[in-house]
């Protein structure tokens, strides 16, 4: 069994499968020896947590469990020989392949904003040097300056993430630069936990955060890097710091393996996560088109477990039962307060998971308690994924 991609989906899959069937030989391949996680990275950008806290080395805990970790970049696949070709020239044979490629960006969607421009206007939507860059730019925001963020339409990784980022940045600026403004230009007309976020922006950061809906402003027309301008149909904005979260698609590896459809994401069977493009490959995590289930680390972990169960059963020619997927997601609205949303998903009429229930925090919820729970959840996620 080969797992291509060592993020939340891939690593949790490897651990879950080893727990269920210890005799199965598992190799995890990733292009980096370390993983820089996105959950928690907004706290780093806003200067509330150190960058080092985001970095994990998965090889050690995999080894303890008898799972191999191979550091390398997959460049091709031979489906008949069941071989993966790596950039180093190494070939790795598999009986079944689990792809967990994460996300990549659609660099062709915003005129004037491609990968080179992301070094000037960071996305910070994959953690690492981009996180550091945005943190440093924010720290250097001029007195009374404008921090602007552009948010893509659905689907994208971590639907409430941009609004958590705006909240934590507001918390930082309120301390050090209270005349500064945060402007969010959104390609959507509504967003995850909207009520909770908007209430927090009013009560905690009055006048600092402005959200502009697609209905009001329409699409971004283009970005002018040399003039530091974001142009829409009606306005030209001159932000001091610009965070562009670009439209997204499945990670590059998904294209290398031939798993994507016209949407840019990977269609899968809802029970086994088998690719509808290549049945010997299963796709889990953010890269898969998994019905109403959002792209989050929590959902990736659930999908990883469900996929491991389904594979064990299909190896025995037993049809696997339909999983009941949960996504429970915390967002920080300040360094001590959080709100959450809980979705439960199941396969009903259609082929893909539908929402059975979706419940957001209400004003009754204790936001300090939710923050504590969020931190406990993050500790648990880190322990189960990276073994630390």
């Amino acid at each position, binding site marked *: 069994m080969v797992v291509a991609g060592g993020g939340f989906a891939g690593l949790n899959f490897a651990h879950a499968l080893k727990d269920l069937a*210890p005799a199965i030989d598992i190799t995890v391949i990733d292009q980096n020896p370390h993983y820089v996680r996105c959950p928690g990275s907004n706290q780093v950008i806003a200067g509330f947590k150190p960058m080092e806290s985001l970095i994990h080395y998965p090889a050690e805990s995999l080894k303890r469990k008898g799972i191999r970790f191979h550091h390398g970049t997959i460049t091709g696949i031979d489906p008949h020989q069941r071989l993966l070709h790596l950039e180093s020239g190494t070939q790795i044979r598999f009986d079944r392949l689990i792809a967990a490629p994460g996300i990549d960006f659609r660099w062709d969607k915003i005129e004037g904003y491609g990968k080179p421009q992301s070094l000037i206007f960071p996305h910070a939507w994959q953690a690492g040097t981009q996180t550091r860059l945005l943190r440093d730019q924010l720290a250097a925001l001029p007195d009374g300056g404008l921090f602007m963020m552009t948010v893509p339409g659905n689907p994208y990784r971590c639907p409430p993430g941009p609004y958590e980022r705006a909240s934590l940045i507001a918390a930082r600026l309120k301390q050090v630069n209270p005349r500064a403004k945060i402007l969010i230009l959104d390609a959507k007309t509504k967003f995850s936990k909207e009520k909770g976020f908007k209430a927090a922006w009013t009560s905690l950061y009055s006048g600092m955060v402005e959200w502009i809906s697609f209905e009001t402003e329409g699409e971004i027309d283009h970005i002018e890097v040399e003039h530091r301008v974001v142009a829409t149909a009606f306005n030209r904005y001159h932000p001091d710091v610009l965070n562009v979260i670009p439209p997204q698609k499945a990670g590059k590896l998904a294209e290398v393996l031939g798993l994507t459809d016209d949407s840019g994401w990977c269609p899968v069977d809802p029970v086994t996560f088998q690719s509808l493009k290549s049945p010997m490959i299963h796709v889990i995590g953010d890269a898969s088109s998994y019905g109403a289930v959002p792209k989050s680390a929590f959902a990736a972990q659930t999908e990883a477990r469900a996929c491991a169960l389904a594979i064990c059963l299909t190896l025995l020619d037993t049809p696997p*039962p339909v999983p009941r997927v949960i996504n*429970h997601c915390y967002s920080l609205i300040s360094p001590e307060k959080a709100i959450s949303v809980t979705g439960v998903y*199941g396969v009903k009429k259609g082929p893909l998971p539908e929402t059975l*229930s979706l419940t957001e925090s209400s004003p009754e919820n204790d936001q300090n308690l939710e923050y504590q729970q969020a931190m406990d959840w993050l500790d648990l996620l880190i322990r189960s994924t990276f073994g630390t």
Partner: protein
Amino acid sequence: MRRKPSNIERASIITGILIASFSLKVFAAPSAEIEKARALTVGCLGCHGAHYEGQGGLPPLSTLDRETFIQRFEAYRRMAPTPSVMHRIAQNYSPEEIRLMADLIAKGSPP
């Protein structure tokens, strides 16, 4: 006493491994039911841990006995909207599904 292993345990046996560490509760119900329970509980580990061991304020499930597990889950299910996370989740599980999950997760479940 002969216990009937579930398909997933058979997978491991077939692949030549003695699963000495599996506890009694895993063998408690007929295989199809245990496997259904496993599919129902894939989302639980996100907050309660891969082995239902809990973390900080997120309670462990592995220490609950079967009756307590069912009683609490049913209570969450029937509750009018409250600020608890479990009430948001519990409404999506039938009493039968709750019993199946208790058989898998709770300690000391009857065979």
